[in-house]
Structures are given as C-alpha cells and as structure tokens.
C-alpha cells in the first residue's frame, strides 16, 4: 500500500523528520569538510564556539538571525497562500531605500524612537511596492510569480546600483553609498538585553529591530491562524479551486499576501541599514532574502519554527566567519554549501524519509 496517505503524528512530521533532514544536510557538509582534508568535528566545534562562545559572538549571531526572521516570515506568508516568493532579496533591497529615505529626512530633527515607526512603514511600503507588480501579474495575468520575482530581483539590483551611484552618493566620495545617518536615524543596540544575561555585546550590531522581528512573528501568527484573511490565504494555498468555489476572491488574496510578504522582506533592511551600517550600501542584503527560503522551509512556515531556523542560520553565518579564520582551508562560502544542503534535504527531499518513517511508525504501534 502507498504510504503517502497514511497520517503521521505531529511530533514526527514537525519534529523527527525535519531534524533527520538537518542531520543529513550536516552529514554531507561534514563530508565536504573531510574531502578538503580537515576534521569535520573540529570544524563543527570552531563553528559553535565562534557563534556562541562569547557575548559579541552571540550578538552577531542574533543580528544575522534578525534579518533571517524577517525574510523567513516573508517567504512563509506567501507560501501559506500557495505562492513562492523568491523575490525577498529584491524586496529587502528596495525596502532599504524606504528605510534610508526616512532616516535621511528625519535624523536631523528627531530622536530614533520617533524615526523608527516611520522607518518601519517606509521599509515595508517600499518592499511591498516591489512585490506589487509580480503579485498583480500573477493574480491578473497568470504570469508565474517565481519567474517574475526572480526577474525583479535583478531589476532591483540594477535600479539600486543606479540610484546609489547617481543619486545618493556623497559628492566627492568614491563609495556608492548614502551619507552616514545621525543617531536619530539609527536603531540603538540591545546591550542592555545582553547585560541581563551577563554578556557583553561589544562591537556586535545586535539592535532594536530584533524586537520588531519578534513582534512581526506574533503578528504573522495572528494573521495566519486567527484572522479571516489568514484563513482565506491558507485555503488558497491548499486548493485554489476550492478557495474560488468558496467565494474567496483570488485576485485580492494573492495581491494582499504578496504585499504583506514584500513588506516583511522590506523590513529586513531596518536591521542591516539602520541597525548595523547606518547607511544604505550596495548589496547590503547579501543573500538574506535567499536564506529566508531555507529558514521558512526549515521552520515549516510557522513563526516559532522560523525563529529557531533563523537562529540556526545565524549560528552558521557567524560561526562560519570564525571557522574560516581558524581553518584557512575552509572559506566562508562553506556556509553557502551548508545552506544549499539544508534547503535540498529539508525542502526538496522533505518526503524522502516519509515512507520509511510510516513503516517504522506502523511497526512500532503494531498497526
């Protein structure tokens, strides 16, 4: 008998299987490390030490995790509506423009806590705007959102380079970036939060946007599981035809889901632009939009899962930097490999272990 239709308890579906997939991904990463002549266990040790060993290491880990929570939520919201938003990278990039415009125009006049709400709105609006055309094309003209969002990532990259090189560049400077924001346009660090645990933040840019990210996690949970709109989105995700039959407006739901997704992606820029570098730079997103895909898959599109997965990837990013320092033979790009393997095993091969688990479960329960 086919095993696909046999239900499994939630702790296997959401606990055991993702964990085993993760183990597989790390096993193959270990093989790569071994193949280039280093000890995988030493590498793992350096990685964890580098990510969690000191106060500033934890600060960096959580800083990266903050970005990944935003992009992970972005991918997850679209995913619930049955849409695959690969464009979080571009939406975050353009979202940075919104955050930077707010910071540049307000930082002379008001303290950061006045700037912050406007910056959140600015980043979300610009991110959402960048998701609008792909959303509209998907809803109205049936153009596949995956393809259009990929195209829009590239268009965003060229647009932002143009703007930074020709519009925002500080006269007389070579680097294509805006001027540095004053304190009124920056998000302060969370050193007090770290101090509560007896840790020193040091130079790590762990900042207030982490709290914004957690708030967004709660809001996304509310939206998806406690509102009518969320219900409509999930229905659409499970079966578009059933959704339309039930009177759920397809065009409206698709567009709103993508706008929320783009807005969340755009908010990632709060962390990188206003929290860390205090200026808008070329390529500041640095792949966080794509990590969001991995985070959302690992976290099974649930905010709690996303936080855990984001921290895992934060550990990889921060620890990976330290690892390449300790083992010069292993470059930082090892984390890209691990990331790819995690997406491969947790995402593309998510059903691979299922038949085996079903058989195990059936033997164990005696059915």
């Amino acid at each position, binding site marked *: 008998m086919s095993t696909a239709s046999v239900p499994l308890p939630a702790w296997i579906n959401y606990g055991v299987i993702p964990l085993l997939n993760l183990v597989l991904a790390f096993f193959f990463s270990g093989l790569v490390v071994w193949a280039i002549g280093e000890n995988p266990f030493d590498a793992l040790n350096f990685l964890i030490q580098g990510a969690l060993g000191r106060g500033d290491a934890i600060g960096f880990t959580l800083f990266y995790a903050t970005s990944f929570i935003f992009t992970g939520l972005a991918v997850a919201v679209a995913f619930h509506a049955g849409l695959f938003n690969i464009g979080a990278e571009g939406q975050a990039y353009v979202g940075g423009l919104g955050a930077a415009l707010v910071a540049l125009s307000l930082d002379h006049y008001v303290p950061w806590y006045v700037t912050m709400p406007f910056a959140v709105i600015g980043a979300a609006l610009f991110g959402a705007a960048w998701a609008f055309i792909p959303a509209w094309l998907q809803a109205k003209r049936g153009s596949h959102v995956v393809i259009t969002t990929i195209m829009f990532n590239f268009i965003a990259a060229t647009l932002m380079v143009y703007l930074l090189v020709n519009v925002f560049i500080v006269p007389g400077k070579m680097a294509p970036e805006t001027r540095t924001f004053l304190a009124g346009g920056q998000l302060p660090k969370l050193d007090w939060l770290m101090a509560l645990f007896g840790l020193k933040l040091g130079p790590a840019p762990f900042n207030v946007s982490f709290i914004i990210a957690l708030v967004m996690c709660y809001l996304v949970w509310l939206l998806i599981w406690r509102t009518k709109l969320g219900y409509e989105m999930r229905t659409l995700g499970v079966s578009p035809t059933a959704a339309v039959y039930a009177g759920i407006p397809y065009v409206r739901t698709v567009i709103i889901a993508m706008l929320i997704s783009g807005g969340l992606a755009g908010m990632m820029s709060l962390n990188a632009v206003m929290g860390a570098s205090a200026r808008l730079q070329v390529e500041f997103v640095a792949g966080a939009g794509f990590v969001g895909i991995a985070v959302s898959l690992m976290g099974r599109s649930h905010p709690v899962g996303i936080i855990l997965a984001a921290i895992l990837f934060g550990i990889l990013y921060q620890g990976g930097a330290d690892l390449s320092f300790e083992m010069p033979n292993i470059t930082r790009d090892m984390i890209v490999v691990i990331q790819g*393997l995690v997406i491969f095993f947790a995402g593309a091969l998510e*059903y691979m272990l299922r038949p085996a688990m079903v058989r195990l479960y059936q033997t164990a329960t005696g059915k």
Partner: protein
Amino acid sequence: MEYFDTFVSILGSAIRLSIPLLFTALAGLFSERAGIFDIGLEGKMLASAFAAACAAYWTGNAWAGLGAGIMVAIIFSLLHGFASITNRGNQIVSGVALNFIAAGLTIVLGTAWFNQGGRTGQVPPEGRFSGIVLPGAEMMRDVPIIGPLYANVISGNNILTYIAFLMVPLSWWVLYRTRFGLRLRAVGENPGAVDTAGVSVVWLRYRALIVTGFLAGFAGTYLSIAQSAAFINNMSAGKGYIALAALIFAKWKPVPVMFACLLFGFLDAFANFMQGKSLPMIGEVPVQIFQALPYILTCILLAGFIGVARPPKAGGVAYTKER
C-alpha cells in the same frame, strides 16, 4: 565606415556573449518541455565551468575539460531529478538548493585545491578552446561590408560557438521529429496520457534531464575554458537566469530561443560598449538600463503584452501514478 566597424565589433562580442545563454536556454528547453521547471540552470553552468577548468588545468586537454563539465552538469541534473521526480519534491526548491550548493562548493573546493581565493589555476593554451579562422577569412577581410562581417563575426570563433548554433536545429529535430521528442513534449503537457500509453513518465523525464545536463555542461565549459582561461568565483553571474528569461521570451521553442539569446547577448554587448559614452540628443544612458532590459522585457512578455507565453501545462507538477 567607422560606424560599421563599431557595429561589427559589437556584433562579434554579442555572439560571444550569447553562446553560454544559448546552450543554457536549450538545456532548459528540454527539462521544461518535459514538465520539470529548472531554476538550477545557473548552478549547473557554474559547477560545470568549475569542473571544466579543473580538468583542463590538470590534463591540459580542452576536450577532457568539456567532458568533465558535461559530467558534473549531468550529475547536478540527476540530483534535481532525484528530488523532483523520484521524491516528488518541489522543483523550484530543489533548483534553488542546487544553485546554492554549486555557488558554495565551487569556491570551497577551488580555494582548497588552488589556494587562489576561489580561482582555479591558469589553464594552458592547449587546454582551451581557441578561435578557429575559417578558410578565406583573411582574403575576404578587404571586401566591403561582407568582408569584416565574415572575418570578425562568423570566422574566428571557437568550436563551441559553432556547436551551439548546430544545437539549435538539432534540438528542433529531436523535439519535433523524433519519437523521443514527441513523448517528451507530451509528458510536459499531459503525463497521464503518456503513462496510459505505456511509456514510463519517470524514465522519460530523467532522460530529458540528462539532455539538460549535457547542454548545460557546454555552457559552463564555454565560460571557463573558451571565453576565459580559468574559473573565477561566481563566473556565471546570473547568466543562468538570463537564459531562463530567454527561454520564456522564446515561448519554449528552439529557434526563437536562438534569437532571444542573440538579442540578450546583443543588449549585453551594447551595454559594455555604451559604458561612459553618450548618445547624440539623449546624453549618457545609464548602463543599468541595458542590464535590466532582458528582465523587464521578459516580465512584459510574461504579462501577455507581447503575444502569450504559455508554459508547458504539466510544468512544476510531480507525476503521481494512480494509487
């Protein structure tokens, strides 16, 4: 005459820039017409470029490089197949994952093996595909109009360029004139019908992916040992996605694929040429416009404003035999 010379030189560089796109778009043609979306073209191109550079560096033989490039691209294709055909995983997710694996692995292995920050060693001349001067090119050079076109655009390319253009009619022939091609197109539209006819959907899709890997291998090889003499970090630089755009722009048909790739290659060459120059009447045109144009055009096309781009019906859906 001066304008004409510039035009010829842009045309020559357009052809050189469109070859990797052409191979990759044809590669994508086979998998997408068989109903397997392939976002992973970029990764295949990158991985095969790396493999080709390594093999050519170690053996000093360009054909060994090509062989290695093709083999690695086929391995990536089969991984994609294992995830999306055998395990019915999401094809987009699998493609994204394989792109990451290729991007990371090439740098990690490259740095470990060559110690040059991700670059491979310089491939010796005999390990590269260099330009072939067609008979009569020098003699023809002085003939007005046709001469420079023949000498600088048609002649002087490497063998992979000519193979790329041969692959266009060949792909057309395979897809539209062979039993394999008919079944391949059918499996992309209605796998159930193919299954009913007693043909294995799984095996057919795997074969389509092998062809995809084979063609993508040429693209990667072209990048690292024909266009340049070493593998450089992330040298595909989004070309896989432009090829995907070209494939869509060409509405999943082989001959239009060639024209779409030539158009996108020409845009690229023109952008390089326009860097820092200004047009009469308009002034300096930002290069970014030309860089973004392929993507913008593809979106406009996808929106149905230039004809209708209809993807293969069963694309992106794993086939499940009746339970």
